[in-house]
């Protein structure tokens, strides 16, 4: 079945993107926050200096000889020096009359009190920050109010703000990059259990339907629980069908044997060639059914035994010799020689019943495909792993079928006219797999097929 899984965005990417967008928003907020805060601080420090300047001028205001006099110190303006060389303006008003300074700098009406008021205005094409404060002077016959404004351009303020903004931007970017790497790491970490689960499920053998037992994160519990339920149901259903097949095969085999013996008996009694031919094909059909039933039983048995593999120490050579001994009469009936090439013991670990079954099926196959007067060579080797090879002189496999032919119920294209259910190779392959080995199919260059069963 081709895999047609419809993919949506990966969980890791989803998680990473959510985290990264969060980080981006945080970084921008951080930048804006720092910048805003810095702007306030920078403005406050400029205001403080302007306020101090105003205060120092206002402090020197006195009434002398009935006249207001403001003899402010050098420091009043000296303190306004900035790295950006900001321009400075000032105005000194007595009541509403300018007595000194820049007439372009108007004093805001209603400014009262010695506490400085601040405002930002456009003056002479430049944005200036203005501090204003006023003070009442009381002389013997004069009562007046002196108001002082000092203004300064905002170049240094802007410069400071730019510098801080740059730093804040760096901070934001650094925070963002850090958060991005953290997000990617966190996203990867989060999906590790999921990956582990997927890998463990993917790595299972085809027969392994046991529930997932390793601990999983709580979010995965419903999935795993469903998976486990599904597998339990699958196993039950598989078991049921295996049981059914075995039962059916068993039930069919006995009546078949009876039918076959009647057919044989009848064959001896009939003379008419036409009838004899019919009876012969009947016997052949019964043989095939019976063999198929046998193999189905074998397969059911193997499926069961393979999932609960019993490992015994055994001698593979001895096992093969026994088999060959038992099959020799059948081979002789077809005028085929079973040539066994055995030297030493081949110690192996495995289930002798399964191995016997597999090898018997392989030899059966070879017998089926071999012509009369031919030889089947059987050899057992211990290296690199214990293995049994069976080579016949039959038609061999079609090259393009070698990969497919060991599938269940598949038969080679060259099998026309030969009794068989196609289960033989499947059984051998299942047994090899249960023993962590493999079944290799090849064509003998001199003609015929070679099948090698190896176990670990």
């Amino acid at each position: 079945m081709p895999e047609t899984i419809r993919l949506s965005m990966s969980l890791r990417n989803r998680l990473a993107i959510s985290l990264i967008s969060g980080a981006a928003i945080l970084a921008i907020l951080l930048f804006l926050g720092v910048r805003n805060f810095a702007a306030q601080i920078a403005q406050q420090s400029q205001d403080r200096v302007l306020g101090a300047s105003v205060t120092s001028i206002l402090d020197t205001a006195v009434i002398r000889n009935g006249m207001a006099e403001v003899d402010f110190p050098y420091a009043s303006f000296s303190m306004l020096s900035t790295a950006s060389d900001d321009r400075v303006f000032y105005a000194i008003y007595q009541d509403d009359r300018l007595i000194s300074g820049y007439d372009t700098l108007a004093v805001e009406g209603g400014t009262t009190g010695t506490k400085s008021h601040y405002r930002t205005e456009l003056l002479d094409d430049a944005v200036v920050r203005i501090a204003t404060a006023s003070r009442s002077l009381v002389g013997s016959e004069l009562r007046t109010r002196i108001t002082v404004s000092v203004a300064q351009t905002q170049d240094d303020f802007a410069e400071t703000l730019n510098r801080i903004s740059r730093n804040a931007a760096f901070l934001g970017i650094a925070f963002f990059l850090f958060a991005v790497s953290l997000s990617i790491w966190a996203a990867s970490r989060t999906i590790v259990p999921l990956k582990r689960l997927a890998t463990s499920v993917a790595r299972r053998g085809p027969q392994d339907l046991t529930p997932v037992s390793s601990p999983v994160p709580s979010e995965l519990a419903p999935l795993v629980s469903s998976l486990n339920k599904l597998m339990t149901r699958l196993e039950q259903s598989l078991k049921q069908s295996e049981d059914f097949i075995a039962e059916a095969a068993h039930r069919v085999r006995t009546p078949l044997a009876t039918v076959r013996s009647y057919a044989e008996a009848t064959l001896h009694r009939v003379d008419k060639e036409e009838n004899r031919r019919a009876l012969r094909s009947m016997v052949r059909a019964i043989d095939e059914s019976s063999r198929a039933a046998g193999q189905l039983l074998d397969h059911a048995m193997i499926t069961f035994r393979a999932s609960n593999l019993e490992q015994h120490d055994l001698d593979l050579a001895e096992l093969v010799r026994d088999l060959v001994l038992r099959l020799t009469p059948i081979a002789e009936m077809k005028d085929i020689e079973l040539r066994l090439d055995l030297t030493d013991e081949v110690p192996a670990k495995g289930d002798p019943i399964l191995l016997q079954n597999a090898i018997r099926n392989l030899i059966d196959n070879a017998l089926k495909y071999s012509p009369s007067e031919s030889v089947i060579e059987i050899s057992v080797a211990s290296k690199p792993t214990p293995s049994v090879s069976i080579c016949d002189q039959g038609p061999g496999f079609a090259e393009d079928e070698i990969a497919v032919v060991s599938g269940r119920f598949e038969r080679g294209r060259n099998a026309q006219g030969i009794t068989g259910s196609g289960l033989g190779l499947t059984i051998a392959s299942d047994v090899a797999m249960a023993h962590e080995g493999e079944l290799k199919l090849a064509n003998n260059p001199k003609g015929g097929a070679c099948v090698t069963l190896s176990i670990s």
Partner: protein
Amino acid sequence: MRYFIYLIVCLWPLMAASQDWEDRRLFLGETGRKNLRVLSSTDTSFFAPIIEQYLAQNPDLNVEYVVTGTSNLDNVFRQNPDQFDVVISSAMDLQFKLANDGFSLRLDQVATPDWAQWRQSLFAFTTEPAAIVINRAAFAGETMPNSRQELIEALRARPDIFRDKLGTYDVRRSGLGYLFATQDARTSETYWRLMEVMGGLGTHLYCCSGEMIDDLAEGKIVVAYNVLGSYANARRDVADKIEIILPSDFPTTMMRSALVSKHAPQQQAAVDFLRHLISRRTRDDDQAIFQMPALNTEPNDSQQSIIALEPALLTYLDFLKRQKFIQAWEDAIIQ
């Protein structure tokens, strides 16, 4: 009739600027068509080599160099900021106020130390201390005074020699004189005592350093206070008659500065000229061309107290402060 028109065309610039210039000279470039107008308080002799070198590189220009006193310069320029391209003055405070009030053009990337420029619109190119210049003859056999205090003592010791033989700037007329006076007064009370002593003995008031040095050489006065040392140094003709003393207590040092008018008719040429001027002062091998004292490499590498280019220069230009200062000054010196 034609000659008459020709005459008018020739004289028109003179008539238009119907000012009493101390000096006015037109330097002609080889193919000069445009006139760069430089308004300056510096004597033409100091600037002639610089202008000539500039014209050699820019032959399509003429330079009209007009000289006037620092106070008048400030007035003239404030009234006609579009008539002049470059303004050069030794009155730092007035120059600073011009720049602060937005009369100057902001340039970029002028290679000059940070302390020698303000807002990239006012550029200092010399450091010149105010000196006490005395007639050697008057001090024959006496110890030369080295500070203001010693000068006060010398004046008190021999009042007859110095009566009516003293000179200093008239701070009411000279912007530079006012700058020196206010900076002196800011630094030390000694200044006021000196002014009172000088006032008591009778002091001649001058508009300019040049006249003071002339009178000193002639013996009309024997002590001149707060004279530009650089002018006195340049007067080789009277070098053997006068002695230039930088007061050891605190030599008030100003920086001559230049700016380009924001409304300069020949703005690009003006910017080029200013760059030329600034680059001249950084070359040691140009002594023949740059005859003024060079800008100190560092403002703190000597005892000189250089007046800083900072907003505080506005302080004594304040109307009330100026009124009060001049009142005090007059009370001291005019008795």
